[in-house]
């Protein structure tokens, strides 16, 4: 596997800072409500030590979890949204963006990075639900396309981790077109026979499910994730009755044939490494 050059200023140091999480910090599991020590929770891949619930995490946590030594280079991290529609709802879209950036310290709802997974160079795109519900706008489309270009240039595999409510309304039809944009771009990766794994996490709905999240060579998920095209509330309102137990949860989606496997987050890194290696290193000395 080829190694990539690392520019000093791009090395992420937040990880080391985080290693110093004081012992006194606690978090509550949203499922079993048990109070968990933050440091322990982090060591346990943000999976509840009591009930195995997979807590919602963002791009930073995934990069840290997956990349060796938590080292990576970010791709196209400087892209931010325009305001092509001059959209105003209860807030002006540029104000909403600016406030969200300030609050989250992120530039958009997805980050792309390249790093090593057990020494295996991999491009990972991961969404942040805290940024306008992980919504897909022009930046998400362009970042994924640039990540795919990076994969094509270097022959690295691609992982996209989705956690999103779907397309971003404030970019109207342009956000809809990101579904077309990314799906069209993925054909180039397919043509180059570079593997793409789509990891659908809680929740993944709307236009993302109806495009690249369902187009992986492998579609995989974390336990208990809500995955669907339409959200449960919309379906319930449309059909006028309650939804069955477990509807649209990872197990349900797998049973209906749309997921290759469900993986515990603690085993994610190892499973990804093995899968990519089986696909890309098709012959080793027995």
């Amino acid at each position, binding site marked *: 596997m080829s190694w990539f050059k690392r520019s000093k200023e791009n090395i992420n140091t937040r990880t080391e800072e985080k290693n110093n999480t004081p012992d006194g910090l606690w978090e509550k599991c949203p499922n079993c409500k048990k109070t968990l020590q933050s440091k322990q929770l982090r060591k346990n891949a943000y999976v509840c030590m009591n009930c195995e619930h997979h807590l919602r995490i963002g791009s930073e946590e995934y990069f840290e979890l997956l990349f060796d030594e938590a080292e990576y280079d970010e791709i196209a991290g400087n892209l931010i949204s325009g305001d092509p529609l001059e959209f105003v709802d209860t807030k002006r879209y540029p104000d909403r963006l600016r406030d969200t950036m300030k609050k989250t310290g992120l530039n958009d709802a997805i980050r792309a990075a390249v790093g090593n997974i057990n020494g295996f160079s991999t491009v990972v795109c991961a969404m942040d639900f805290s940024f306008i519900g992980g919504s897909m706008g022009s930046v998400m489309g362009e970042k994924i396309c640039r990540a795919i270009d990076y994969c094509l240039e270097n022959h690295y595999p691609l992982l996209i981790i989705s956690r999103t409510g779907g397309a971003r309304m404030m970019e109207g039809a342009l*956000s809809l077109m990101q579904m077309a*944009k990314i799906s069209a771009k993925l054909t180039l990766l397919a043509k180059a026979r570079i593997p793409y794994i789509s990891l659908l996490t809680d929740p993944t709905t709307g236009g993302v499910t*109806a495009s690249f999240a369902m187009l992986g060579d492998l579609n995989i998920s974390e336990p208990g994730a809500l995955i669907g095209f339409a959200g449960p509330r919309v379906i319930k309102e449309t059909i006028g009755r309650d939804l069955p137990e477990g509807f649209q949860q990872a197990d349900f989606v797998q049973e209906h*044939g749309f997921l290759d496997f469900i993986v515990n987050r603690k085993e994610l890194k190892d499973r990804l490494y093995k899968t990519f290696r089986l696909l890309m290193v098709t012959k080793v000395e027995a």
Partner: protein
Amino acid sequence: MMSNHIFDFERPIAELEKKLDEMRKTAADNGVEMEAEATLLERKVHDLKNNVYSNLSRWQRVQVSRHPERPYALDYIQHISEEFIELYGDRTYRDDKAMIGGLARVNGQTVMFVGQQKGRSTKDRQFRNFGMPNPEGYRKALRLMKMAEKFGIPVISLIDTPGAFPGIEAEERGQGEAIARNLMDMSVLRVPIICIIIGEGASGGALGIGIGDRVYMMENTWYSVISPESCSSILWRSWENKEEAAEQLRLTAEDNLRLKIIDGIIKEPLGGAHRDPQAAYQAVREQIVADLTRFAGADPDELIQARITKFTSMGAYIEKSEKEPVASS
């Protein structure tokens, strides 16, 4: 003639037209010549129509796109084609009545039509599931498109849907996967694809048959990521702001042309396609024939490359320089 279904913004026109009718009737009954007055009133009606219909708000366009007498996909196909054989089924689960398709001949050229189909009567509307396809609808469309690819036949997609159906069975059978597969496979289909939004272009349900070398909208249609009603309910937490949502979404043909999402607008007869369906069929046919000529003998590899470039170029973003703070304009 005014249609049976009149929007509020059409009332002044309807009233004048009624007056004109009465004037003519009185004249005929009494054997009086009223030419001068009638001509004057006729002109007045015409001017008012021009004024009203060329100044429709975005929400009013949405209303016209949903007019119950508007021509639907099968109406267009039947009036545009010299021959048409409808084909059914996705070969996996069942035939979806909200998605239609088949082989046709237009201007001597064999084409494959696909499109969402709405119903007109209450019963028919239910039969067509209000133009909301299930996954098998998208798979049916893809099956027909792949057949077209095999035989080197151009694809014409007529889009008219309030959205892909949000139901339990739709989720079980993979609504998301079905639409996603179409987006990817249409991107590399080795025959020309012409897409025309003839009514409603709602979100992924529309895009699922909307990847084309040319994408057009008829004048009184809408195309966006969400309906104004749903957008209103999510962003304003009320159904009442649908008019405002329609404005903000910039969902008209003109908006989408300006945003470079579509390639052109097909003019409709004054007042909408339902006012003069024959004129609407003619306009759509002319566009299709022009594009069939344009793409005749096109190299499939070049076609695909241009199609991928077209869609991967869509978006509006800013490259922020590292040192600079985020613009607050």
